[in-house]
């Protein structure tokens, strides 16, 4: 007896697709490579950062690690917030999910929970016009957003100016408490609100998949965030959503099977089933059959698997990725002031910037304060010896304000992926901006920096990141539309054209990529696609 659905991948898309399918009465087998680090997680104490720092002689193991992933001197700022206990999220990926490119530095994962294992938990929704541009049905997505928000727990502030741009579901929990620096910025924004709004800038508390109230249901025990500022290292209370919590919940269900250690390379869509081909951890071939299959391996990997399944090499599929830059600023209102110990480490605020020249597109900036990534990371950034850098960092920490700016994306022939060889996994990628895009991105950053100055900040630096650093990828198997010429396309149900029994539940099918964080929309769309797959199975059974 084969399962109704094979779900490939356990990230945000896979976990939510599986959950929706189980809820709809289907049987699901999830295929996953499933790297994990439970020992690393368990080594992190459930205690405030300030207490850990003064008491735990073992803290170097998780606060720094044997080999820190983040090395600014190699010029690679991708995944800069990946601390030692979360480094497993990238293990094996370069070797087993190879990408060759001089212009694009993508982050990939073979972890249980995929890139969701290290996700920053930002949960903005997309607006109607953004969903339409992406090719997603507005009503179905609204319902799916609501389901995801209830399922994972999202805290948000409906009375902030940003709400119309980023919130849809009223099933949210109360917003997380802003820290001292964020409160000072919000106060400055309130004083200059009319002027900065006229420039297209709004500021509010960031919607986050961070619980401010516990969730209790069978198979799911999660507590509210304790504001320990340890969120980049551990989360013993499960207060920040990770896809593995959904997998844990599903494992107790009799119609769900989790099969780990599988690296999927290709599929075959047969008359009555989908067959998925892969290798196990020893490299031995394995195959699985289901009535239908759902690819939820991320936009790059789903394209890789689809291209290999059709034996298409050298032909280009489109690639979408938000450009990202960091603005490093000092909030002068916080210079020399004390900051509350009680805080979370995630984005405190979210700015939405909609300048006239973007024609309705939004620029999104997540605003962070700084402390728990250690003084050393900061002190060694200054152009001075460390004996001077350490006290400088100590003086600046409470005022440090970091805006991670995501820029709108435009599809172009200079952004693509292609399989290098029909029988291999190597993906070639190319990503190049034209002059207009570069100028618009620089203008976005300058505009946000100007508003930050009006809010009392001094901007120290703008740091450009490599293409791909945003970890926002989409559009590699685009939904068909008039004029769409990609060799492989999908339909509105996520089905790959030419492979009737294989659906794509991740962002590969999107025709556009707004600048706001995409993970909540990935999860909502995955639920929608899974439900459509189950409905199709039911229709087949009736026929």
């Amino acid at each position: 007896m084969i399962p109704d659905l094979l779900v490939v991948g356990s990230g945000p898309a896979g976990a939510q697709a599986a959950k929706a399918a189980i809820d709809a009465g289907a049987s699901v087998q999830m295929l996953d490579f499933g790297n994990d680090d439970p020992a690393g997680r368990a080594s992190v104490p459930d205690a405030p950062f300030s207490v850990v720092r003064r008491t735990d002689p073992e803290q170097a193991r998780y606060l720094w690690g044997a080999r820190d992933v983040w090395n600014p001197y190699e010029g690679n700022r991708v995944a800069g917030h990946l601390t030692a206990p979360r480094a497993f999220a990238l293990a094996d990926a370069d070797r087993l999910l190879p990408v060759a490119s001089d212009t694009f530095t993508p982050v990939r994962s073979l972890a249980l929970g995929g890139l969701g294992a290290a996700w920053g938990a930002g949960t903005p929704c997309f607006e109607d016009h953004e969903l339409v541009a992406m090719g997603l049905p507005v009503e179905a997505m609204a319902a799916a957003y609501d389901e995801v928000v209830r399922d994972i727990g999202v805290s948000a502030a409906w009375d902030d100016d940003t709400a119309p741009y980023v919130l849809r579901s009223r099933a949210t929990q109360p917003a997380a408490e802003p820290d001292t620096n964020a409160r000072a910025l919000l106060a400055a924004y309130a004083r200059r609100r009319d002027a900065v709004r006229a420039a297209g800038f709004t500021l509010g508390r960031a919607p986050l998949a961070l619980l401010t109230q516990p969730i209790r249901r069978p198979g799911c025990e999660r507590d509210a965030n304790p504001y320990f500022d340890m969120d980049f290292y551990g989360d013993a209370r499960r207060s920040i959503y990770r896809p593995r919590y959904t997998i844990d919940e599903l494992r107790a269900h009799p119609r769900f099977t989790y099969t780990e250690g599988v690296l999927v390379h290709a599929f075959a869509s047969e008359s009555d089933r989908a067959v998925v081909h892969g290798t196990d951890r020893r490299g031995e071939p394995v195959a699985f059959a289901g009535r239908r299959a759902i690819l939820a391996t991320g936009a790059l990997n789903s394209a890789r698997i689809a291209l290999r399944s059709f034996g298409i090499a050298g032909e280009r599929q489109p690639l979408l990725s938000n450009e990202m830059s960091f603005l490093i600023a000092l909030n002068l209102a916080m210079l020399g002031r004390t900051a509350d110990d009680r805080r979370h480490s995630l984005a405190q605020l979210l700015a939405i910037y909609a300048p006239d020249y973007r024609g309705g597109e939004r620029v999104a900036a997540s605003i962070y304060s700084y402390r728990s990534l250690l003084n050393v990371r900061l002190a060694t950034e200054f152009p001075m010896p460390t004996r001077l850098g350490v006290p400088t960092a100590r003086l600046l920490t409470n005022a440090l304000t970091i805006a991670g700016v995501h820029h709108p994306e435009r599809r172009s022939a200079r952004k693509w992926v292609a399989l290098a060889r029909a029988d291999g996994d190597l993906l070639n990628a190319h990503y190049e901006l034209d002059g207009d895009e570069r100028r618009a991105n620089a203008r976005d950053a300058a505009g946000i920096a100007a508003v930050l100055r009006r809010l009392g900040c001094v901007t120290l630096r703008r740091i450009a990141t490599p293409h791909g650093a945003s970890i926002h990828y989409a559009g590699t198997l685009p939904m068909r539309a008039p004029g769409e010429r990609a060799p492989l396309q999908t339909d509105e149900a996520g089905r790959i054209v030419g492979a009737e029994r294989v659906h794509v539940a991740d962002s590969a099918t999107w025709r556009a990529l707004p600048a706001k964080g995409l993970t909540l929309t990935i999860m909502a769309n995955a639920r929608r696609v899974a439900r459509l797959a189950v409905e199709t199975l039911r229709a087949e059974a009736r026929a």
Partner: protein
Amino acid sequence: MLTRLQPGQAEIERLARRETDPRRAASFEPLALGPLPTVLALAALGIAAALVALPRLLVRLVSERGAR
């Protein structure tokens, strides 16, 4: 020039080990001296950094001129 003042990986590792020693935690924590003392302290650190950089800058200028 400025790059040469920044530490290498070994120095970063050494600093990280010091910072994550709980006995030294207090000497890495944020300082809140009040706005004016903070500005003065930052100015002093900036001057000190410039003084550290100056001899190297002079040596470099002299050696570049000599090479011509």
